[in-house]
């Protein structure tokens, strides 16, 4: 893990979900919203304004890149985005951090369980 990958941690939920949605495939904006909805089982809703605000930052940080081509039969207004290696590294770092958090949380929760006399 590079040092740069941990500079921006922890990630905001929106950033995390966007990176996560792009981890599997190149997606356009609307597909990213659909993927985030699927991942969170509909509990996390991301509007276009928030999505592109985050995408703007992610592109600036070069964690995500915009692709120059799209399928011929697609809406010409759509743009496709891809997770870069740097983005993938940040996602991995965040996932690892979250893993630690989860493990620690579980540990604490185990210790806090009521005991029977």
């Amino acid at each position, binding site marked *: 893990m590079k040092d740069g990958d941990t500079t921006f941690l922890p990630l905001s939920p929106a950033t995390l979900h966007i990176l996560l949605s792009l981890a599997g495939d190149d997606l356009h904006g609307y597909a990213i919203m659909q993927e985030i909805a699927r991942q969170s089982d*509909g509990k996390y809703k991301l509007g276009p304004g928030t999505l592109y605000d985050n995408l703007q930052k992610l592109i600036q940080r070069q964690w995500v890149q915009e692709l120059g081509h799209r399928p011929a039969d697609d809406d010409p207004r759509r743009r496709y985005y891809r997770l870069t290696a740097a983005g993938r590294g940040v996602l991995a770092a965040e996932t690892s951090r979250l893993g630690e958090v989860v493990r620690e949380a579980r540990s604490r929760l185990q210790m806090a369980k009521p005991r029977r006399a």
Partner: protein
Amino acid sequence: MLRPLYRCVLRLHPPAFRERFADEMLSIFDHCLGRPGLGGLGLGRPTALSLFADGLLSLARQWTLRPEFLHDVAPAPAHQPAMDGIPLFLSLNPFRPRAAAVIHGLLLSVAVFSLTCFAIKYSWIQVLHVRIPEVQFERPQWIPPTARQSDPQRGSPASVAQGRAPIPARPESPAAPSPASTAPPRALRPSSGALPGASPRPIAAQKHATPASAAPDSKLRKVTKTSHAPKAQGTTDPVAPVAGVPSAIAEDSKLDATTRHRVIDGAVANLEKYYVYPNVAEKIANALRAHENNGDDSGASDGETFAKLLTAQMQDVSHDQHLKVAYNAIKSSEGVLGSTPEELARYRKDMRRTNCTFEKGAILPHNIGYLKFNSFPDPSLCQPTAAAEMASLNQADAIIFDLRDNQGGSPSMVALMASYLFEHPTHLDDLYNRSEGSTLQSWTLSPVTGNKLANKPAYVLTSASTFSGAEEFGYDLKLLKRATLVGETTAGAAHMVRRHRIDDHFSIGVPDTRPINPISRTDWEGTGVEPDVKVDAGDALETAKKLAAKDLQQE
């Protein structure tokens, strides 16, 4: 319905964000409203309202919380040919001004436009002063049918305009009684005759109008000398080129007997048709024929000399100083005797430059008002100037009009100036036109609002050069016992002249209208106007001042 609003919200985003994401956000808006739910994931269908709210939130966020992205467009990927093989054509670095720049430009444009409109409306900048009547000068539909071929003019070069309101009258009756018409029809339509006027006229006007203080009549006298018409200063400059005639071509002016004969024929025809006295016209015609038969014209081998010769021959018989033949070295096209727009524009410019020939206005000792003006210019152009000059003398106890260098002009302006001396509309003259068989009454426009001079003693200074319309002013006021004339007997030119075309180079100014004073039943043609107090012109002002002071003391 929200889509246009949503689109507006997207357009209001910072340029970098807008260019990069607005289209795609709009596509999401369209997509969400076009199908139920987000992929059937139980998210519920985003309403247009929620998307619009999201857009507003995004708008606020981008402008307030993302200053680092306001102008920096994130590097866009190089577009590749579409997957179906059809290449994409993109413009390089398209320019789109920032929203703020557009708003600034809009506000600036509105401000400049408003300022310009304000300037035109109140015209504190003289350049922007738009005078609609000047435009109307050149509208052919204003020309009375009888004025289309020629232009009645009177004495002064300023008289390029002279309105007419024909009143049926007995053609040979010198004082045809007319219905109770008043001056306004004439006075209010002063410019109708200016359109087709003799083309050299405004050039003479320019000569006249040039020196406001340096003896404006002196140059006119030069014109007179070259035209062999000692006192017909204002009529025309025979060699004046026709300005504004694109097709004008200077031609050799050598004349042969045939040409001379043709010119004489044309002059005679116009005289017989239009000249105010048919019997005199016949005498003139006979004289011209006799001179031709005697070979008196054979020495005139060029047009200018011939025109001067004919003028002298005609005036020898008629003594009519308005009667002149003019030669123009530049060929004029058919029907362009009238003043061209350029000439009219020059006349207007000259009038502005010379304060409409109002040379001097002053309050003399004993509170005597003094006004020297050297023509009676077209009131449609100079009425404001005349009103201002008269207003400056409104508090005077007596008034002296100095017409010693005045070359006449528009009868409308004569009536306008006389209006200040009467409390009620006053009949000045009947203007009888022989060729039209009509008589036009000239009345003052009294009372003039705010005027206090109507009952004040008035004096008119005259000289042997006082000409035409200026003579009318003095003559009418004298007979109405409204003014005391001081100075010399005037020139004796009463007629109004209208220019007619003879051929491409020659034209003739034929007096076709004479004034008939309602008191004397005649005019001053040939005799001039006798002053009440006869002194040399140079002493006239001092004499008038003494008279006025004496009259005021007696009061």
